[in-house]
């Protein structure tokens, strides 16, 4: 795969002395979806703003398809589209005009057919002559995406695109992201919704206190760091765990009908076979057995807390 975005030792210290980015290194391949997770104030928006040219870096380098964002800013920025976190739109302008303006601003010649394509793709075509102020919140977010796509960028930054939106719209956004990926657009999105990263990202990065704690393939991350929970359902409830099972890290459910056993999927031996044998030997009749994979959220919380990165 070809690298489309390379961030090297990116640092940002604001005038007041606050260090928002502490040497971020990140390499993003063309066509992938990266989700950057992090608590509020972690540096996600500063990272995006710096790459897009809204904030000036204190040190480090960013290259977009090989173009430096400072020395080759025209070529680099022409490849980038940005959907900001807040809804920033000219309220009295029409949908079509504001999207057309964005295309022109990025130096692209007027192309009514392209604008129509984008508006149709985002279900905005029927609203093309409406003023922005007449639109619902969800429609306004779509307009922001349409504006970011108007100049046909190769990399699209979505800064918390579903913050504060309802479940239905969030699913819509995920569909749009999937659609854009199919069109070959590389997508970098920030979010603090773990389920969002879990649902749509190829790779997940975790940022806390201005540092990129990890960046890894979502599936391998969950496999590498994930824990599983085994719930052994027993036919007759018990009041306390039998002494013969005291060697296991077990927990008895409040109704006394299940033994909860947590194990590490990375361990050579999970201990499940021996546990089940000992449960049977203790005279407990098995009613059912089920397992549950820990979510990305559990991993995220573990990681951020272990780094002392909660805010």
């Amino acid at each position, binding site marked *: 795969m070809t690298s489309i975005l390379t961030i090297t030792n990116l640092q940002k210290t604001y005038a007041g002395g606050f260090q928002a980015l502490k040497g971020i290194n990140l390499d993003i391949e063309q066509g992938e979806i990266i989700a950057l997770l992090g608590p509020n104030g972690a540096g996600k928006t500063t990272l995006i703003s710096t790459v897009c040219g809204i904030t000036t870096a204190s040190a480090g380098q960013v290259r977009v398809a090989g173009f430096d964002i400072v020395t080759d800013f025209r070529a680099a920025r022409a490849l980038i589209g940005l959907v900001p976190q807040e809804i920033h739109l000219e309220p009295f302008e029409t949908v079509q*005009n504001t999207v057309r303006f964005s295309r022109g601003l990025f130096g692209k010649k007027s192309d009514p057919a392209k604008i129509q394509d984008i508006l149709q793709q985002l279900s905005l075509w029927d609203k093309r002559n409406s003023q922005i102020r007449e639109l619902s919140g969800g429609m306004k977010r779509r307009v922001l995406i349409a504006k970011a796509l108007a100049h046909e960028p190769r990399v699209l930054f979505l800064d918390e695109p579903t913050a504060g939106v309802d479940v239905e719209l969030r699913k819509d956004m995920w569909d749009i992201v999937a659609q854009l990926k199919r069109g070959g657009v590389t997508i970098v999105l920030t979010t603090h919704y773990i389920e969002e990263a879990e649902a749509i990202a190829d790779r997940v990065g975790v940022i806390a206190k201005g540092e990129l704690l990890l960046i890894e393939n979502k599936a391998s991350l969950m496999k590498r760091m994930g824990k599983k929970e085994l719930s052994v359902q027993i036919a007759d409830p018990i009041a306390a765990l039998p002494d013969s099972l005291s060697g296991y890290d077990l927990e008895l459910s409040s109704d006394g009908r299940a033994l909860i056993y947590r194990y590490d999927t990375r361990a050579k031996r999970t201990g499940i076979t021996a546990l089940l044998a000992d449960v049977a030997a203790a005279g407990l009749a098995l009613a059912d057995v089920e397992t549950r994979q820990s979510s990305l959220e559990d991993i995220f919380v573990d990681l951020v807390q272990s780094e002392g990165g909660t805010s």
Partner: protein
Amino acid sequence: MNWTAIKSIYMFEMARFFRTIAQSLISPVLSTSLYFVVFGAAIGSRIDQVEGVSYGAFIVPGLIMLSVITQAISNASFGIYFPKFIGTIYELLSAPVNFLEIVAGYVGAAATKAFIIGVIILVTAFFFVEVQIAHPVAMLAFLVLTCLSFSLLGFIIGIWAGNFEQLQLVPLLIVTPLVFLGGSFYSISMLPPVWQAISLFNPVVYLISGFRWAFFDTADVPIGLSLVAIAGFTALCLVVIGWIFRTGWRIRS
């Protein structure tokens, strides 16, 4: 140069002007008409000619300057302040445009609006008084330069302003007094010698004097000095704007 971007910003700003065409045009035309009624007809009828020109006609260049300067500043300052206020400035900052292109788009649109209003006021004046234009090309050149230079000043004010109050502060407290005291309604030769000397520190005196020369071939200060003053003022504004974009002052953190 990213000409497409300049055109886009320019057209977007002009669209705002045409969207509110009634208030954009009616207000200056109405206020100018009132000036003509009050100063031209009511008071002017009791004033003799000023430097060989009827008082009603004498105030035409000053009235045009008054409106053009006010409009140039307010249009340009609002043009760049509004994106800051509503947050759409992110798009300008992330676009492949440099400061010259941004300034060309916004200042070009603001100057065009001010120019249109200046021309409309001139046309309105013809309905009230008889006005002759001795140097039409110079008149147009002065008008264009004034529109441009004060739009540049307005752009700086728009970048500097942190709220709508500040946006009004400089025009109200500094520019309007300078324009009124800059000989809009009188020749500074009518003032006592001390006030004449003080007036020469007012940069607007040079603009109005030069503009009036283009109409009546008579001026308070030499025409060359007027040209140097307006060129110097434009250059100063450009230097300040260049510094703003180089440092990101008030726009880029």
